[in-house]
């Protein structure tokens, strides 16, 4: 059965990884239908064990670049500030946009970093920097955060995916796809684009016979590809396929309809809300890294009305996610990140829009390992520059690794060449960490 590449990225069109990922996405089997990780978490003992052993990350990827001024770094009353007011959060002295009343009320688990200067305001290359924590270089194909965390936090015997990425909007999807880089396809992302459930594991999906025939097709194609080649990455592809084959069996993992109605109501009816509920289910079942892409924030015109439309949704869903994780005793082991490729200009353009801006923008970290209720760094009065505590992508990533108890100085090896998780000399932001 033929299937078009879902994201339109050139990578998917030409790479073996993408080719096999597409094949894997078509696969399905009932062989692992007894996996009931979500239900098992109802046991307090198991949940406690997971809390000890496992940490997880849910990234809310605000694709296109949400405005820091209309979210986490408001500047009311100055010429660049826009029309919205700031409101007091539950931490004295910390204010965020009035468009985020729920996050303001439950700010205790969140740290805002208001001093990102990432020096790149082009969608594609900036997205790659913020997904990988560093600039690229021609000789090294760096993995993104999800792949690194899949490697560091995933379990060999796990039958849940290690890296799931929801990204339904078509705009920007190809700019920062999940990317395992030199770690290999074993740590690549399961990309859910057109559906919240992997293709063909939904009810009424393919039969065992279909699956066997597809596996045979894959074996034939793979053996043709491998003929005359020798590479350790081929093993990685085989491992990835094997894992995905198992994962595909677990229909319930992705099915938010199995949540009680009151829980679904809490998250709301928007796609972003439903995907964040799915992310919580995946995280609860042990998936180390889930990215939920909420596109598209590129508000070159009518910035304030677009943010008036989108920020309340972010506020509602993010606050609900944090509440839900806390209610389930999982927040202390789950790190919630809001991130984008950049923020938006303080200056307001002639179409009442804000443009791309990477010189002084914001991100948030909530939950696991984070000193909640705090702000790190400061932009200047007009939001044009970082006034205090400037950091780039590398320090942000070092901070994320540290919050997850991962040694950011650790090296991977490409042949004999050591590749540290973060660039040499990079240190985490201690003030952000619990």
């Amino acid at each position, binding site marked *: 059965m033929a299937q078009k590449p879902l994201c339109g990225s050139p990578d998917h069109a030409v790479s073996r990884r993408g080719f096999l990922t597409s094949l894997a996405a078509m696969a399905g089997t009932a062989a692992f239908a007894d996996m009931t990780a979500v239900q098992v978490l109802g046991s307090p003992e198991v949940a406690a064990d997971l809390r000890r052993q496992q940490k997880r990350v849910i990234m809310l990827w605000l694709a296109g670049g949400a405005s820091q001024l209309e979210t986490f770094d408001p500047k009311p009353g100055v010429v660049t500030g826009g029309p919205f007011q700031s409101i007091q959060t539950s931490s004295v002295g910390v204010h965020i946009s009035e468009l985020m009343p729920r996050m303001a009320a439950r700010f205790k688990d969140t740290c805002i970093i208001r001093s990102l200067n990432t020096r790149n305001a082009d969608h594609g290359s900036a997205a790659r920097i913020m997904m990988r924590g560093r600039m690229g270089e021609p000789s090294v194909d760096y993995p993104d955060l999800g792949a690194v965390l899949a490697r560091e936090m995933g379990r060999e015997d796990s039958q849940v995916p290690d890296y799931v990425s929801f990204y339904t909007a078509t705009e920007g999807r190809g700019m920062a796809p999940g990317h395992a880089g030199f770690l290999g396809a074993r740590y690549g992302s399961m990309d859910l684009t057109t559906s919240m459930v992997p293709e063909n594991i939904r009810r009424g999906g393919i039969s065992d016979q279909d699956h066997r025939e597809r596996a045979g097709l894959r074996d034939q194609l793979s053996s043709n590809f491998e003929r005359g080649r020798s590479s350790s990455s081929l093993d990685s592809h085989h491992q990835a396929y094997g894992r995905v084959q198992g994962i595909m069996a677990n229909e319930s993992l992705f099915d938010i309809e199995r949540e009680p109605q009151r829980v679904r109501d809490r998250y709301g009816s928007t796609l972003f809300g439903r995907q964040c509920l799915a992310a919580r289910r995946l995280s609860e079942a042990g998936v180390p890294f889930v990215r939920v892409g909420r596109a598209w924030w590129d508000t070159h015109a009518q910035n304030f009305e677009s943010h008036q439309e989108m920020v*309340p949704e972010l506020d509602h869903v993010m606050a609900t996610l944090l509440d839900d994780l806390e209610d389930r005793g999982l927040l202390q082991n789950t790190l919630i990140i809001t991130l984008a490729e950049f923020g938006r200009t303080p200056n307001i353009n002639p179409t009442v829009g804000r443009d791309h801006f990477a010189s002084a923008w914001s991100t948030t970290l909530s939950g696991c390992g984070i000193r909640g209720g705090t702000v790190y760094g400061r932009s200047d009065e007009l939001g044009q520059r970082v006034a205090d505590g400037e950091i780039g992508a590398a320090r942000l990533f070092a901070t994320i690794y540290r919050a997850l108890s991962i040694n950011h100085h650790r090296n991977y090896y490409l042949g004999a060449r050591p590749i540290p998780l973060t660039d040499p000399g990079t240190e985490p932001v201690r003030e952000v960490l619990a």
Partner: protein
Amino acid sequence: MPPANPRNLRTVRDITRRDILFSVARVPNTSRLIVASNDNKVYEVDAGQANATPRQLADHGRYVNAVRLAGNTVISGGYDNRLIWWDLANNREIRSIDNAHSRQIRQLAVSPDGTKLASVADDMKCKLWNIATGERIRELSGHEERTPTGFGSMLYCCAFSNDGTKLATGDRVGHVVIWEVATGRQLSSVEVPSLYTWDGVQRIRSIGGVRSLAFSPDGTQLAVGGVGQIGNVDGIGGPSRVEIHDWNRRQRVHEFQGQQQGIVNRLIWSADWLCGVGGGNNGFIFFHNPANRTIIHQMNLPMHTHDSIFSEDFTTLYHVGHQRIVVQEMHG
């Protein structure tokens, strides 16, 4: 005074400012303008002079979206949900109504007899006020708070008919309600979905809405302005668009799109033409002849234009927008 002729339209003054002006009123028979600014204040500016010093009037503390003049009283509203009455002659506040609406006020309209004020806001309510006393006459509810995809809607504009008996209100998704002013009864409604773009595939957000309304001189037709369908909602690169409806029959009788891209922010319907102004990256103005359904004249303006107002004889036109006030004349 020679009659006005749109074909002779020319710019006579271009006043640069540092702020964005969203709304304008004019002191009758003068070039003195009252403008609403994104620096949170209302100003009086003499547009007859290139370097006149503005006089500050009300201070809302937040963006001011709308300003109108009734006699000697300036009334303004904005993101602070507040309506402020200001005595222009004595430069003092007459009254302030806090929480006049529960969300930001988008636009105001004064009835032709100068006795009533209509305000529309993102609480999706239209409220009628007694201008002399500040008392609320009634509240009109006929617009959904949520868009069909579950996001908050916005109520952008309102306009009285020339005889003051009818009022129209228009929202983000293209729903227009025509009200009987005397009773608050809904007389009719008109749907203009072409002015609302919901992109559920590429960007999962929306743009557009009904941004301007004007009754025909006889009140039987209603012009509805905004921007047509947009391929990329990151910008407003869609066609400037106007639909004319026979509101009583709920029939669209005509539609047209300007040569320029952008939003029609203001419509003014005279005896001879329908004038629209607005903007995308630049501003535009067009004059349309409703009788023969042709464009009489159109031209670019130097800035995205948010509001405009004519002199009594229609020979002079004042535009406000992004960091500029522009004065045009069109003598016959």
